[in-house]
């Protein structure tokens, strides 16, 4: 029997508790345990993905009980891909962020790593599970850990940002739980596949509609879809770098995954697009999200805040794509989960390097960065171009599918929003490039005209380089990813 699906979630969980115990022996040990745990998890995720591609959906029965009675992990192509993304980003980030953690929270670094591992356990568990209630329990873990880790950031502003996040996040999770409650009353089951079969027979029920609205609303709050996004910009901008780098690319993307999972597997696309008449309204909502995110980003004066609003905008892409109601749009949305995870991660890696060297990310502090940190800025430019959607970076290909999907569905407003937001992103990034490239470094330039390269440590640069390669590779192999993973999943 293949235990890999369980190991993938359990390695970081065990790692967290061992790291907690080891911290009492030697503080450094907890970091190495965390690293080892994430390496094991990453390996298991890759092995699960290859198994799923070759031999189809994997099911793992927890405690050996058959599915509707017990809990099962059910890993098909979609979640196998997301699992690899999560574990890889979490692992690379551990390597990249060790110095940032030392700089920012040195006195409680071991606890930080324990919390970090538990956060990753939550994300992996949410993605791997095939049970609606288990999903809620794991959302609870991710939320609780992210509230804590965000509050550890900026001394003055992070606790308040985390508090806002708690208020809104708890409402989101409660909505989801309430929706699952309605589903349980009407179907008597919590297993996704089982619920899906029962729901086919009772599609007209008002309780099912209520459950659907509640679940989707809860997930939207968690993923910060406009206008439910108010918690996100501050929370992500004030979080400690070591955590912002992993929460920004992963948290919202995993929630998009949950939405896709609920739509495709639990409620079924026929129910959503044929029985209900909500799709048009949701696409309009996504259009507003894209435009609002992009234009608010235009007014930001801080790099981190700007990136946070770009995330709000990207969420609009994925929600809109998923609700277009055709296979192209859904393909674009799923591909964008992967691509946006990589691009956001690269951007935050670069921002983390800048913070490590300069402590500040306000636009006025960025002058002369190209000269001082050429490698970091090279990675930043590549990720920025990918967000704008310049081929051959991966951002182009998911946008391409989304635009094609929009035309096929006749949603020209969505296509227009995609193109306008790409232009706005171009303006945003070129504004940043201009400051970094042309404006002389005001601090060092006055007395010392010779340019000194003050680049971030090698571990950070190597991680950024790796992710940059991944961005280009995901772009070049976009066709392969769509053909081997996404299209077979959607059939």
């Amino acid at each position, binding site marked *: 029997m293949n235990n890999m699906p369980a190991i993938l979630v359990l390695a970081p969980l065990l790692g967290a*508790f061992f790291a907690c115990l080891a911290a009492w022996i030697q503080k450094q040990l907890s970091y190495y345990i965390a690293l080892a745990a994430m390496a094991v998890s990453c390996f298991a995720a890759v092995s699960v993905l290859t198994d799923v591609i070759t031999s189809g959906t994997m099911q793992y029965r927890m405690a*050996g009980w058959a599915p509707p009675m017990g809990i099962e992990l059910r890993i098909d192509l979609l979640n196998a891909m997301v699992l690899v993304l999560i574990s890889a980003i979490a692992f690379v980030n551990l390597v990249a962020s060790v110095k940032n953690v030392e700089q920012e929270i040195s006195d409680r670094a071991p606890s930080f790593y324990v919390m970090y591992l538990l956060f990753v356990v939550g994300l992996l568990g949410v993605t791997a599970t095939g049970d609606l209630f*288990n999903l809620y*329990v794991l959302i609870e873990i991710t939320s609780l850990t992210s509230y804590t880790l965000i509050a550890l950031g900026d001394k003055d502003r992070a606790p308040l940002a985390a508090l806002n996040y708690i208020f809104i996040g708890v409402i989101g999770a409660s909505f989801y739980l309430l929706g699952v409650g309605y589903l349980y009353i009407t179907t008597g089951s919590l297993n996704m596949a089982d619920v899906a079969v029962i729901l086919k027979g009772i599609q007209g029920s008002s309780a099912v509609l209520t459950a659907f609205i509640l679940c989707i609303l809860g997930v939207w709050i968690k993923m910060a879809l406009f206008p439910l996004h108010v918690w996100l910009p501050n929370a992500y901008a004030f979080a400690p770098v070591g955590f912002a780098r992993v929460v920004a690319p992963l948290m919202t993307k995993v929630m998009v995954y949950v939405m896709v999972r609920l739509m495709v597997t639990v409620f079924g696309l026929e129910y959503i697009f044929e029985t209900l008449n909500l799709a048009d309204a949701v696409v309009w909502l996504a259009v507003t999200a894209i435009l609002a995110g992009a234009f608010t980003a235009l007014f930001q004066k801080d790099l981190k805040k700007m990136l946070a609003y770009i995330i709000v905008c990207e969420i609009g892409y994925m929600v809109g794509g998923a609700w277009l109601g055709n296979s192209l749009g859904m393909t674009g949305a799923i591909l964008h989960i992967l691509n946006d995870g990589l691009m956001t991660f690269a951007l935050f890696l670069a921002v983390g390097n800048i913070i490590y060297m300069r402590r500040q990310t306000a636009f006025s502090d960025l002058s002369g960065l190209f000269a001082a940190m050429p490698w970091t800025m090279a990675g930043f430019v590549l990720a920025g171009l990918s967000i704008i959607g310049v081929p051959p970076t991966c951002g182009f290909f998911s946008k391409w599918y989304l635009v094609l999907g929009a035309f096929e569905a006749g949603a020209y407003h969505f296509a227009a929003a995609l193109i306008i937001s790409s232009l706005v992103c171009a303006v945003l990034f070129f504004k940043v490039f201009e400051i970094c490239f042309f404006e002389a470094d005001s601090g060092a330039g006055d007395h010392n005209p010779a340019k000194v390269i003050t680049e971030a440590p090698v571990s950070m640069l190597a991680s950024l380089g790796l992710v940059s390669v991944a961005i280009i590779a995901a772009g070049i192999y976009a066709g392969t990813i769509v053909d081997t993973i996404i299209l077979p999943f959607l059939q």
Partner: protein
Amino acid sequence: MKFFGFVIVCLTGGLLLYGTMDLPDWGDPGSPASTHLSDYYIEHIVEETQVPNLVTAVLADYRGYDTMFETAVVFCAGLACFLLLRDFRPKKDRYFRHVPTGVMLHFKNPQTRLIAGNEFEHMDKDWVPSDMIIKTVCRILIPFIQIYALYVVAHGDFSPGGGFQGGVIFGSSLILMAISYNLKTLVKRVTEKFLSVFAALGVLIYVGLGVAAMLMGGHFLDYGMLAPLLPSDPGHIRALGMLGVEIGVGIAVMAVMVIIYINIVSEGRHDEGL
């Protein structure tokens, strides 16, 4: 804003009411929730697990994976309190009391050492003379509360109870000690290291039992696979496995309760408080 809030509340309430139209009647024995899985559980649990308490069997065996993460959530809560509240800076002002006379000394410089025998005791700023009646009653009561907590943990699979409840009772007995004496008495007996090790160890017992089952060739948390390790009736092994995880849950919950209490009342300084 208030008006918008009102409209949203009305809409949500309306949605919930709309959803109830199609729900089965209250207590309807034919409803899906009481027929689909419940029948299976009621008919098979005693035979499959030998646990008379069906709720515990569902909680700790059929859905044991969920409960493991619930315990991890409890652990997270304790760790969150530590991460956010713990304050390692030494406090500036310290107070000592000369026990025989009741004279108080106030040290403003943290470096000053008081070289004196047992007649001085380190005390809280808002010190209230402790009440002999309360102290004595609590001292007698605490061991009984703790034994009752162990009873609740151990009887989880026979009667209402289990690790969460037992752990909370045990933790509250320690908190009672802090309330009736003072925080220092508690911190001296259960140190921070003790608590954090036990919080992690409790969850580790749970996960460890699951991993042990996996190493024996079964699925994760499949207690049935532990049979060769224990000299017991193989039919009863699932009940023993559940007892094991309940003990783990109890330890973790107990430790986390105390961690949360100490960090909140002393504002993270672990020196004085309620």
